[in-house]
């Protein structure tokens, strides 16, 4: 073990050498490593158990489903459960897409505009406005429920999807503003100033210079907004009075919430309902991981 031969003099400057570090490590290191991995494996299995049950049950033949066979693998693969629930979920899925796509796109775009102005095109009072916007993040949904429905009724937006979209856009703004403000703060001021000197005003600087460098921030904002709009139940339940506008979460609740619903159908619906958010993450996650900005901004 090379670690055992290390003595204190090899510890880099500025770091306090840990007494006896090398020796202790040499003796126990293998056991500690094994223990560490065993623990990690345990938690992995523990957290994946529900997912396993979900996937396995939804793929079983309806006849095979039962409480005592929850952990068994399906003897034959069957997509019957999916076929059964699909008609009941179809409208909800479409509604949710019609809701989550515009809501996440628009609130990201508005958040980008906010973030840009708050970090790069400062106006007097910006330091006052930003905390005010942020404050919106800390208002619990329940507390605005009644005034919100009142306002929506007043505006004639209650009942349909457009009102729900508007609510999600507005509720998303504090977070998207925060994401973009932090992101744009990392861009050098000189780039914005160069655009200014080059003859671009605020809007053109935003569209031509700021937006093109923002895809990673968009990925983060859209993933977040899409997921939260998709998963929302409360606002959907309150604002959509007509079942034709129900988002998938409510449809899902009606399938899974009933007493007599077979496990396999509940599981299959849940799986279908969570696929789009997974898909968004898989598609966009790559985008922001790639670090589009690397090396492009500095010097």
């Amino acid at each position: 073990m090379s670690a055992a031969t290390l003595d204190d003099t090899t510890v880099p400057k500025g770091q306090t050498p840990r007494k006896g570090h090398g020796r202790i490590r040499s003796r126990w290191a293998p056991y500690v490593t094994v223990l560490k991995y065993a623990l990690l494996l345990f938690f992995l299995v523990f957290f994946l158990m529900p997912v396993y049950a979900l996937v396995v049950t939804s793929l079983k033949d309806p006849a095979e489903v039962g409480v005592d066979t929850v952990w068994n693998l399906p003897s034959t693969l069957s997509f019957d459960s999916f076929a059964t629930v699909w008609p009941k979920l179809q409208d909800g899925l479409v509604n949710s897409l019609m809701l989550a796509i515009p809501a996440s796109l628009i609130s990201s775009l508005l958040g980008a505009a906010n973030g840009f102005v708050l970090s790069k095109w400062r106006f007097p009072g910006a330091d006052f406005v930003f905390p005010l916007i942020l404050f919106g993040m800390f208002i619990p949904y329940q507390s605005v429920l009644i005034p919100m429905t009142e306002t929506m009724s007043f505006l004639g937006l209650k009942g349909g999807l457009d009102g729900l979209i508007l609510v999600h856009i507005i509720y998303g703004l504090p977070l998207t503003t925060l994401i973009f403000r932090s992101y744009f703060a990392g861009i050098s001021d000189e780039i914005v100033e160069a655009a200014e000197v080059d003859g671009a005003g605020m809007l053109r600087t935003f569209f031509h210079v700021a937006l093109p460098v923002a895809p990673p921030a968009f990925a983060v904002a859209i993933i977040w907004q899409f997921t939260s709009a998709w998963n929302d139940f409360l606002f959907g339940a309150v604002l959509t009075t007509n079942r034709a506008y129900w988002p998938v979460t409510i449809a899902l609740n009606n399938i899974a919430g009933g007493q007599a619903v077979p496990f396999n159908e509940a599981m299959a619906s849940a799986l279908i309902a969570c696929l789009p958010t997974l898909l968004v993450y898989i598609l966009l996650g790559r985008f922001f991981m790639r670090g589009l900005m690397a090396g492009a901004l500095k010097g």
Partner: protein
Amino acid sequence: MNVDITNAEAAGITLDGVDKVYRGGVKAVSGVDLTIDPGEFMVLVGPSGCGKSTLLRMIAGLEEVTAGRVHIGDTDVTNKLPQQRDVAMVFQSYALYPRMSVRRNMEFGLRMRGTKAAERKARAAEVAETLGLAHLLERRPAALSGGQRQRVAMGRAIVRRPKVFLMDEPLSNLDAKLRVSMRAELSRLHQRLGVTTVYVTHDQIEAMTLGQRVAVLRDGVLQQCDTPANLFHKPVNLFVAAFIGSPGMNFVSARVEGGRVGFGGLSIPVPEGRTLADGEVILGVRPTGITLPGEGRPALTAVPEVIEDLGDERHVVFPVAAPRVDTDATRAAVDAESADDVLLPDDHARFTVKLPIDVPVTLGEPLELAINPARLHFFDPATGAAL
């Protein structure tokens, strides 16, 4: 299409009692009056934090003036936005637009001003040709070297044919060799384009080699604005004298009495044509003002303490038996180097002299030198003003 990248009308710049107080009360620039002629290459120089960038940014319109007026040509631009001033700026970080190709970077300013695509393309191509960027036009800034980015930043300014170029330490991110060659290229470009240029640097050598005139700033106050030769030979005060020149001017406390200046056992007649009242003065002499012994020059015996060989010349440092000059002005002028003094064992002045390489010099061996009286400078110890 034949395009002409030279600018038809160069405009002068006038600063009229310009002040800048930042929020929080930092007074970055105070009462600067400066007239820059059309087509002139003006350099703003001074130690870090003296307000050079602030002054430049006020000309660009990126910073509001607290008081005073700014004119570009005949137009009062004091309250105009940067977009309305027709200036182009080269930033220290180059500030290229990261998601645009070199071509689109260069065309951006033209696009924002509504120039037709065909003309934009022709102009960008022409400038790219001039700057040796033609083969890089489709690349993104991230795929360029530092020197190439610097050229693109320059090209982006030139393409626009602005009334004025503003440059804030554009060469400071380049390595020493490249900096020297870009410096020469900048001079050539300026001669060719004839655009009024304001150039900020803290490097006095860059200032002296580039500037037709150089404005020296200290703590936001304009000290002297003159040709490099005049700054070197006729500094108006101790600060300018200490700031300009490398190695810096040698200073020593001296006494004037009856037409002679005395310091460290030496007594030199006050140079012809100068009248100095009796009393304390600060005497300054450039490293080139001390020479090998010559006709009628007051002799000086030096015991070398440090010898620096530069290949074709030699810098020799020796102590002088008279008090060192240590005023705010000299300290501000040399800021970084002043730490050396701390190591000196006594409070005697140290002189540096530039000698030809073929003169034999040995550490600790006395060496006969002479002072050129015509090259002496005198400053008032109280105010620092040249006498």
